[in-house]
């Protein structure tokens, strides 16, 4: 479980999002990115997941993704190893990983928790 420190730069993050975007919704010839139906979600990275956000971002960030994507897709886009996300909540209620995200959703992601 050794963890190498992640060194995100904003450009890397944008690049990764761009890649995911295209993989999931290939552009037609002559179509611009802005024409693909997309949605923006507010992501809150709880606990140590904060370090998967671009540096200086804090734990809240807006992520754009093609419509029809799920919470699991979002976790992949951000680049968090799946074993470090115990569950996610959409608009304050815990949801399954296959929950489809909608424009304006607030998605909270939590690490595994122990004790109490």
């Amino acid at each position, binding site marked *: *479980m*050794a*963890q190498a420190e992640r060194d995100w730069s904003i450009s890397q993050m944008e690049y990764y999002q761009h890649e995911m975007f295209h993989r999931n919704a290939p552009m037609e010839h002559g179509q611009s990115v802005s024409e693909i139906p997309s949605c923006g979600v507010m992501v809150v990275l*709880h*606990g*140590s*997941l*904060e370090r998967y956000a671009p540096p200086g971002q804090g734990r809240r960030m807006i992520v754009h993704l093609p419509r029809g994507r799920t919470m699991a897709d979002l976790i992949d886009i951000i680049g968090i*190893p799946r074993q*470090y996300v*115990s*569950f996610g*909540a959409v608009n*304050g*209620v*815990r949801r399954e990983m296959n929950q489809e995200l909608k424009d304006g959703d607030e998605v*909270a992601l*939590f*690490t*595994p*928790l*122990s*004790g*109490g």
Partner: protein
Amino acid sequence: MGYAGKVLFIDLTSGTHRTEELNRTWAQLYFGGKGLGVKYFVSMTAPSIDALSPENRVVLMTGPLAGTIAPCSGRLSVTTKSPASGTILECGVGGTVGPEIKFAGYDGIIIEGRANDPVYAVVDDDKVSVHPAGDLWGRGCHDTELMLKDRLGEEFRVISIGQAGENLVPMACLTSELYRQAGRGGVGAVFGSKRLKALCIRGRKPVRVPDMTEFMKVVGELMREDCLTDTNLWARTDGTPLLVEASNSAGILPTKNFQDGVFEGFKTINSESVRSVRQRKNACFACTLACGNYVRSGGAVVEGPEYETLALAGSNCGISDLDAVIRFNAACDDLGLDTISTGNVVAFAMELTERGIHDFGMRFGDIRPYLEVPGLIARREGIGSDLAQGVRYVAEKYGGRNFAMEVKGLEIPGYEPRGAWGMGLAYATSDRGACHMRAWPVADEAYGTLDPFTTEGKAALVIGGQHYNAIKFSLIVCDFWAISMENMARLASAATGRHVTSEELERAGERIYNTTRLFNVRAGFRRAADTLPDRIFKETLKTGRAAGRTYPKEEFERMLSEYYALRGWDEEGVPTPTKLEELEIS
């Protein structure tokens, strides 16, 4: 090795002390901390005694890792008989007091008898003395600790009681280093019954491990590969307040005396809010996680509030004002009160008032009376004289038995069982009443991938958790390091110098759990006491993930029978002679 090799006995009746060689056979079977403390306690104490009589004892026990550089090893285990539940009571306190006992040359300190007048005890390496505490009696934990440090020296570690412990309040705790508590079950009242205001410890002896190079290698590897990972670092970034939002999302945040599992005001008492008033992080001895949040807000300073306080004294009382919760927390710390039980009894009084059963003069969300209650409870004044006796007593006196949220007389912590059915079994079968520290199946149910609304497989899950925590709190590794059994075995081997396997640790965990059960059985507890309040079985939650679901009692009873069968206990929950023999318990 790993052990100091001595146990100190302080007899307050005669004011004398003696040391004994550590019982090495017990140390092999029970390792330290909870296990060894419980073994010493049950070997000397009759289960039928009154918890507040001189015949009760307090066993403070360190583990083989205490005082070493092993991460998360800085806690101390405290065992006694609980005045709240009448069960055996083992609880833990962080900070530095555990390692300090080891530095003074002892694995444990056992306090016996009762002094005629208030006293404090001083353990300064081999010098042990008992002094009059007339000038400290009546003071809070903060004053007491600071005055004793002024008198004895800054390097002394102090563990003390406040006014609640002096007045034998069954929800009184021990406080150490101002903000850390052995919180549950009334160990503070046991100190009070012995008229022991404080115990002060200073040690200057070394702690030895068999092979320093090997020990450092193991600790270094585990620190990198198992401790400082995303699985545990939530403790550093946030600490337990993170659970407020997690529990609220999962629908298990106790709200208004467990009437709901979702609190509309959660955003003002969640981790982001606590972080906004945080001054710095605090850690126990040798801890790399540093879960403590040192905050200043609302005119109060506190290390906290922890999740349990935010839940039981926050959402469960309908309080969404973080400043108010912090002030409540600070008051309880100083008076020496457990915030879980105090929050619960306040919430119960609020519901009794709202339902017109008895007027305690406070409703959910009323901040002023809420902030006055801890002082009234600790001094047993006004409504505090009833509330000090706990939820069970208040229900018996005034009514509301169906929604008196306790098990065996100990109030329920911050995880709603209707949204995590295994957690209900964990509360019912905990060795000290409703407790979240014996097994924590919510990690898999509410926050993980298991179905929370079934009893299938939960008996085995709870048993596994109970064994895991029993041995973890015996080696003394903190709850917040989700270390594997295999890696615990590596730590235990490195500290003791003998080859310890994970199977041996698992078996020791089972041995410890059966030892505490046997004490409770001998104190009169049977199946009928292993249950949950009626509200859990008869009412549904209004909102959130568990909304509208009942937790059928027959399902719970079936799971309980399965639990007993898997444990090798009879239908009444009594360990069978075969099981006891198998585990070498006499």
